[in-house]
């Protein structure tokens, strides 16, 4: 405690000296410019280690007033406000006026994140932590999904939760692929996903939420913070032959720009049809976002000798201006 640096102005005004054990402390908390600080906490205890005896929160223009019944000779006062250095001092136990000027502090508030569990239930939402279920060999999110209790994926790619087909497959709350969620499920790198959420009794139309009880669950993929780009470098090179060999997942996901650019190699002709097989069920609000889809299929004319002549390709691009904006909002609020 460096008193000299604190610019403390304490006025001691002896108001009364009656025999009562009750003392009144009043005063004002200001910042370095003398402006009152509203919401500062003034805490009085017996000494710096013991529990609080009395306290006040500064109100208008930093004013506070507190009473205390204590027979102690001296008391410990601590005044704190977020972003300012704590002011603390031992004072005599008698009625007095405390005018305290706090100085800004560069020290940050002690921030915490309480660790989350493997599976957690929040209301109708069940959160599965992907890292808890993911093994090293798991490449795409469907590999991990298969291991999560309650979730099953049929051979056609249909996702079921507790025996019922899911209603929606959201990515960050967006239903981009509608029934064609297989595209994402089999291409999105498991490393890019932080959580898988099951929204039980999810009602896609909000207004009906309190009226209609939906029995089918929906699934929401929560991406990791910051950027989640899988195979983006390769994508930038424009589907290079290297990529083809390595069979990486050229799926680009960022929180700000949720665009899917995916392709799937196919020498047998089976995988492609499966990937676009449509499980679409009663689609509410198919056009709500200004989504333009382009499905180019197949890309047989690539002039690259490395490509098989009959390789089937799907290139699907989703440009969604609304979604870019949506992603931005999601990050700050």
């Amino acid at each position: 405690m460096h008193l000299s640096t604190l610019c403390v102005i304490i006025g001691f005004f002896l108001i009364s000296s009656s025999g009562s054990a009750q003392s009144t402390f009043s005063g004002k908390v200001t910042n370095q410019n003398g402006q009152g600080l509203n919401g500062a906490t003034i805490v009085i205890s017996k000494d710096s280690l013991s529990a609080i005896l009395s306290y006040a929160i500064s109100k208008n223009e930093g004013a506070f007033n507190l009473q205390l019944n204590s027979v102690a000779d001296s008391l410990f006062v601590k005044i704190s406000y977020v972003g300012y250095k704590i002011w603390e001092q031992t004072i005599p136990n008698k009625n007095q006026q405390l005018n305290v000027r706090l100085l800004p502090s560069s020290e940050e508030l002690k921030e915490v994140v309480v660790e989350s569990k493997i599976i957690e239930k929040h209301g109708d939402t069940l959160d599965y932590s992907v890292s808890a279920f993911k093994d090293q060999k798991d490449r795409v999110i469907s590999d991990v999904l298969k291991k999560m209790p309650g979730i099953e994926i049929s051979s056609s790619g249909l996702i079921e939760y507790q025996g019922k087909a899911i209603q929606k497959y959201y990515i960050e709350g967006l239903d981009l692929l509608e029934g064609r969620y297989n595209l994402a499920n089999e291409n999105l790198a498991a490393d890019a996903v932080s959580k898988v959420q099951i929204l039980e009794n999810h009602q896609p139309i909000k207004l009906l939420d309190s009226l209609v009880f939906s029995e089918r669950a929906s699934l929401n993929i929560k991406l990791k913070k910051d950027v989640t780009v899988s195979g983006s470098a390769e994508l930038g090179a424009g589907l290079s032959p290297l990529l083809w060999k390595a069979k990486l997942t050229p799926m680009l996901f960022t929180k700000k720009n949720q665009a899917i650019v995916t392709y799937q190699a196919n020498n047998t002709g089976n995988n492609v049809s499966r990937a676009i097989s449509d499980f679409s069920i009663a689609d509410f609000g198919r056009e709500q976002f200004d989504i333009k889809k382009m499905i180019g299929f197949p890309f047989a004319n690539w002039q690259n000798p490395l490509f098989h002549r009959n390789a089937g390709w799907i290139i699907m691009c989703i440009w969604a201006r609304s979604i870019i904006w949506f992603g931005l909002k999601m990050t700050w609020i």
Partner: protein
Amino acid sequence: MFPFLLLSQSDNIDGNYNYKISYQLHYQLDSTNSDHIKSKKMWLYTGDNISRFSSAGQAISDSILNSDKHSKKSFGEMAKLKSQIPNYKFEYYIYKGIPDGKLSFAREIVDDNLRYIENLNDINWQISSVTKSLFGYKAQKAITTYAGRDYIAWFTEEIPISDGPYKFQGLPGLIIKIKDTENHYVFNLREVKKLPKPIKIKFSKKKFLTTSKSKFKSVKQQFERHPFSKMEQSGISFDFKKGVRERMTKQHKEKLKKRNNPIELE
């Protein structure tokens, strides 16, 4: 010109939110069924004099729906837009410090934007000398009674923000845990963080119809009991197949019976 200026001044609120505090709320809406405990993420944004508390779903959904981009959309289009947002249950905002020294409880019911005002110091705390370590902070116990429930709170002086979840505030430090003695409403701290960029406080008195708490409660009850009538009064028309309306109303009534345990009992 001058009086006009004065008016606009009193309507707008200056300031920013600097911190975001997340809580996990576990609640039991049906007092007869202790197996049916639900949970929601709740967010508290705090600024110098004003804080805003709401469910995370409410905050996300409003930030999307209130964007200028959608101001010209029809009701139907908005409903579709809403369908994109994960569902949420607590559709209110609590602004502490608006007006000065009080709180504003705000909620939109169909097309009525309602607000009632309550005194902040309606909550009187009794601080106990019991301390314990909680979520990495040194916490101290305090108890209070509010709206028919007895609460046990834990606050920490390490975060000198005199605030907390729901309407609770006024302790010499942030409330990091608070629960009623029946364990029907339990708030636990999840995260405290400084916002990378302060967020401007948006609050316009003009937007709200300010009413009394009892009037607010009766409008809310009216809507819960007769949701279709309230929506129809607001100009929304429904075209049901035969018997559907009756069936939905019946289901809704059954659901209401299971929601017999609000946070405020009186």
